[in-house]
């Protein structure tokens, strides 16, 4: 029985893959003489994080559409950009398949992946094929620590973010006994580890370390175990799909600890899922608040008019595409070999930050902002400037 099941599952998977490949076969040159530049994008478009993945895709698509409408010249030729958007299901295994497919499609660059857990296994494939990769939202330290010259990100990493959160919890919120739960993904685990380091360094104690996964819905058992340790703050390393229900179940179990999470939970969806329990929750997001950035407010208005309210990383995807195009223009070529150097040395004013990369491909001067849910919306509490946040 089980072997039948496994066999039919793999068959179904193979069929799906075939379908997937047929769907977006390379379309070749445009009828007009424009130079066609393909940019790949990858995010989970199905599964529990699909709402975030679609948000990413929309951010990238808007940048591409605007560039096409504006009319971009690269090296004296008019360019038409094409977005090839792929679904990696937030799954490390699917991410490598997607990466290979994008490499085979001869994309000039990749915006992605959304998750750290997918960006990390994919980056070797992009590096082997010489394709520059800008992740809008992979924050795990390991992403740029592997030494691949093609990997960049437009967001501060978890060492910086975890550091700010840990210090904020212990110093500003006065938390003494902290419980930590993470979803065992590269992102969740990495952020939780960095948070713990900083919180302990600031004098707090970690009284419980528990785990869940990125598909779970029920946390009552884990939270009950946490409750017996009487924490005054619960930190969750993971995405909103788990963070929201977790905050809700925390209150249902009459556990009074403050709730704190990282960027993955700083979404309108989190507030919707947690309901009344969202009130007072803390989360951080790299960068300064969007409406404080030049062009940030205008971007957000354009985005909402075209799609729907921003979930999370759409502005970062938008910046990632634009910074890639800027590098191509600077180098006068969309050939990865030629514009890679220009990308590494770029200075570009995006809607989320002034984007400059350090030698590893990390964002220079990444600020971190801590937010709290007040009256049903995320309100910025305080922004820690770049340099003091850069612990590593």
């Amino acid at each position, binding site marked *: 029985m089980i072997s039948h099941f496994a066999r039919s599952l793999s068959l179904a998977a193979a069929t799906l893959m075939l379908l997937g490949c047929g769907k977006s076969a390379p379309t070749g040159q445009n009828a007009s003489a424009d130079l066609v530049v393909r940019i790949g994008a990858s995010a989970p478009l199905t599964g529990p994080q*699909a709402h975030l993945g679609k948000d990413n895709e929309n951010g990238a698509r808007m940048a591409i559409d605007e560039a096409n409408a504006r009319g971009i010249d690269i090296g004296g030729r008019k360019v038409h950009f094409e977005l090839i958007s792929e679904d990696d299901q937030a799954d490390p295994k699917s991410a490598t398949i997607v990466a290979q497919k994008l490499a085979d499609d001869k994309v000039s660059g990749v915006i992605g992946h959304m998750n750290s857990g997918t960006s990390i296994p994919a980056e070797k494939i992009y590096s082997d094929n010489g394709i520059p990769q800008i992740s809008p939202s992979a924050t795990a330290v390991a992403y740029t620590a592997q030494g691949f010259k093609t990997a960049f990100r437009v967001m501060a990493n978890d060492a910086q973010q975890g550091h700010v959160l840990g210090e904020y919890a212990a110093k500003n919120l006065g938390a003494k006994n902290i419980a930590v739960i993470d979803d065992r993904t590269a992102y969740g685990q990495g952020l939780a580890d960095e948070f713990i380091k900083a919180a302990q360094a600031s004098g707090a104690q970690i009284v419980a370390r528990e*785990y*869940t996964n990125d598909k779970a*819905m029920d946390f009552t058992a884990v939270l009950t*175990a946490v409750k017996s340790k009487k924490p005054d703050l619960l930190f969750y390393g993971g995405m909103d799909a788990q963070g929201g229900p977790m905050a809700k179940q925390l209150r249902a179990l009459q556990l009074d600890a403050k709730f704190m999470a990282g960027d993955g939970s700083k979404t309108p969806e989190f507030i919707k899922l947690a309901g009344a329990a969202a009130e007072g929750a803390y989360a951080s997001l790299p960068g300064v608040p969007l409406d404080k950035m030049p062009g940030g407010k205008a971007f957000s208005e354009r985005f909402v008019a075209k799609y729907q309210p921003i979930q999370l990383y759409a502005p970062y995807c938008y910046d990632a595409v634009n910074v890639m195009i800027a590098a191509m223009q600077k180098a006068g070529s969309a050939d990865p070999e030629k514009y890679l150097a220009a990308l590494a040395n770029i200075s570009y004013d995006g809607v989320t930050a002034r984007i400059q990369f350090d030698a590893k491909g990390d964002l220079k001067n990444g600020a971190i902002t801590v937010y709290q849910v007040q009256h049903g919306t995320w309100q910025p509490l305080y922004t820690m400037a770049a340099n003091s946040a850069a612990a590593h």
Partner: protein
Amino acid sequence: MEILLQQIINGLVQGSIYALVALGYTMVYGILGLINFAHGEVVMVGAMLVLSSLTAMLGWGMPPVLALPVSIMLAIAGCMALGYGIERIAYRPLRHAPRLAPLITAIGVSIVLQNLAMMIWGRGYHSFPQLFANTTHSFGGAVINDIQVIIFIMAVAIMAGLMVVVHHTRLGRAMRAIAENQHAAQLMGVDVNRVISITFMLGSAMAAVAGLMVSANYGLAHYYMGFLLGLKAFTAAVLGGIGNLRGAMLGGLLLGLIESLGAGYIGDLSGGFFGSNYQDVFAFLVLIAVLVFRPSGLLGERLAERA
């Protein structure tokens, strides 16, 4: 002590949902020898139907006391139609095909339903409206809220009702007869197609109720929610002995308890070596252990053999 009590409550609430879904798997298996892998998606559709009809009716100004039962009825009707349709389209034409074929169509139906739901209801999460104050009761240090009490009572009542239907009605006798020998039952004048359709509709109605329970308990619905729930419920059905109704109930409740006690205590018992991330591993270890010693599950016999 209050922690243990709380974990048992957690497990029973979760387990009664598993049990209700597991019944859908086990009924179909008992009668057709087929695993209906699309069953988890029917639960999801049930939750989505309740939510969207409820939200619409509240929007029209209907009072919650009226809107809730109406939307539950709508969801049950919708899921019954869906269950009928699935059987008619994906399983009936393959009833005499090798067993692998309907298994593949089952997975196909599951993928189709998931993607249809994604297209209809979108990729985002839908939250369950707060209809009435969900009072929390506390005893012995443990807490349980109204919704959880209602879930448990409803699940037990539905399971009892199902037992009555299967063991004390004409329809139930026909179901058991088909489970024992489809051809003989047909020769005795049982309308096999009709009974199988009704079985699917019964299972889907319970799935709709389970969908309501899940979305009310967690306050959310999502097009992907049926997948893991279906897998867990299938595990529960196998644990109890697939094809056996009492087994599905027992398996569901046991799985809920194992999960919550496992997640709650495994870290402390193993000195932090195994964390609560081994929750699922723990549940499947128990499943494997049971299957090694009792290959047909805890109460392993098919529906028919209880007759």
